[in-house]
């Protein structure tokens, strides 16, 4: 049971749709980039702080969601940042639920009071995904750079009390992966129904911190053994997903099930994106939901058509018999690592740039175990760093 996952959302469990799909099936509303945590593996853009004074209003969100729903979108993720930082998600959840969306809230739990969860339940919220950084109070607080662990345990109890399944997300990396046994014990004691232990994917802040976050092969193997033991012992009581970094693969992930195929991300400032990271790609003008309706954005915009289908592909993807399966991997990863978004994702061992991946993986085997010495080198996701990095 391995799937591509957090901190990016799961690979959609959707059938790939035809190039001519009228609209997205899955909308992710990044309602705000404000967040009380400062996670070192955050996938929000480095310059996230520039969106703070441009956030969509409640009505602008509802208009965009209505337009997407009319085109057939059924899944709605409400994420961030920390979505609970906005005081209007009660309204957005209730209205989206009325429109017929299946609504999923992705939260760190900070700010989730009983009053708010009761309102979400009454509004029709279908699921809550709670993220944890680690099982030990000390590392959880270090990685998220705040004191939140006890609070999260309280939130986990609230989620159960309101009859939601306990869906737990823990982002794994070099600094916490050796604690996987404790993490799973914590999950078991919280009566988690689904646990996703996904290694961070190296985008945005996680890319900045990549060498501190990538586990060694030995760490991955030990972690997988622990996972398998838990699976054997707990059976169906707790569904467990373990996801290794894609750098350890020889074929790329089928990123977003294909560009402009099922997924639409709407950033806090209204920018419409085919994935969470696409904002970084050069040469594309991403439309804003303030200025255009979703139909125009999805069907007609240059950005959503840029890598749709496979006519844009150069070799080795063009003649590859797996191009319909993985779509050449991730455009953002291709751009970040090779400088050209049309290249094959270098995770693929058919890519002429594959050594960029194997080099990093080799480095991860020889780096010493992280300790307090490296901690000052890690770049935390916070507003000051965001403003500094946007100048670069």
């Amino acid at each position, binding site marked *: 049971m391995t799937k591509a996952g957090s901190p990016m959302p799961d690979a*959609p469990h959707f059938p790939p749709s035809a190039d001519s799909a009228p609209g997205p099936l899955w909308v992710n509303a990044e309602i705000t980039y404000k967040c009380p945590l400062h996670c070192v593996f955050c996938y929000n853009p480095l310059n996230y702080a520039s969106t703070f004074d441009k956030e969509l209003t409640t009505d602008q969100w509802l208009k965009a969601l209505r337009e997407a729903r009319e085109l057939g979108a059924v*899944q709605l993720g409400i994420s961030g940042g920390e979505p609970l930082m906005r005081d209007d998600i009660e309204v957005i959840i209730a209205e989206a639920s009325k429109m017929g969306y299946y609504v*999923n809230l992705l939260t760190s739990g900070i700010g989730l009071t009983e009053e708010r969860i009761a309102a979400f339940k009454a509004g029709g919220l279908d*699921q809550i995904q709670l993220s944890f950084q680690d099982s030990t109070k000390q590392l959880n607080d270090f990685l998220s750079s705040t004191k939140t662990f006890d609070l999260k345990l309280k939130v986990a109890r609230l989620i159960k009390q309101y009859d939601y399944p306990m869906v737990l997300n823990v982002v794994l990396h070099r600094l916490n992966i050796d604690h996987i046994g404790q993490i799973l014990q914590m999950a078991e004691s919280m009566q988690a129904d689904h646990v996703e232990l996904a290694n961070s994917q190296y985008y945005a802040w996680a890319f900045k911190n990549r060498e501190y976050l990538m586990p060694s092969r030995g760490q991955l193997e030990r972690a997988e053994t622990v996972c398998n033991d838990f699976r054997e012992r707990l059976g169906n009581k707790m569904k467990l997903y373990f996801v290794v970094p894609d750098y350890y693969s020889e074929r790329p992930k089928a990123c977003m099930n294909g560009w402009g195929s099922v997924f639409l991300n709407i950033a806090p400032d209204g920018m419409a994106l085919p994935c969470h990271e696409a904002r970084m790609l050069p040469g594309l003008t991403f439309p804003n939901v303030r200025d255009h309706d979703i139909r125009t954005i999805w069907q007609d915009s240059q950005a959503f058509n840029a890598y749709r289908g496979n006519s844009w592909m150069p070799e080795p993807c063009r003649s590859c018999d797996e191009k319909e399966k993985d779509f050449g991997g991730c455009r953002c990863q291709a751009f970040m690592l090779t400088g050209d978004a049309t290249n094959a994702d270098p995770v693929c061992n058919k890519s002429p740039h594959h050594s960029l991946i194997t080099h990093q993986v080799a480095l991860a085997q020889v780096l010493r175990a992280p300790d307090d010495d490296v901690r000052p080198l890690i770049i935390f996701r916070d507003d000051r760093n965001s403003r500094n990095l946007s100048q670069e």
Partner: protein
Amino acid sequence: MSISTNQALRFARQYKLQWEPTQNAYVLLYPEGLVKLTESAGEILKRIDGNATAHDIISRLEASYPGADLQQDVLDFLEHAYDKGWITNA
């Protein structure tokens, strides 16, 4: 485990059945995913209401489609849906 024909069926927690005009089909929604149902799968699942048993569902379908012998096909599909975790005993 198999389905008892005399026990009421309901959707599992987190599963929702919904008619989608844009797809001209019933879809089954669950966290971060969906299954687009064939016409017959939709006809079967839309009769699950927390009270109806497999037996009731078969009789109602046979009333809607007179002359068809649906028993085995419907049972097979309900079994499949049960194994997939979409439906459970009420």
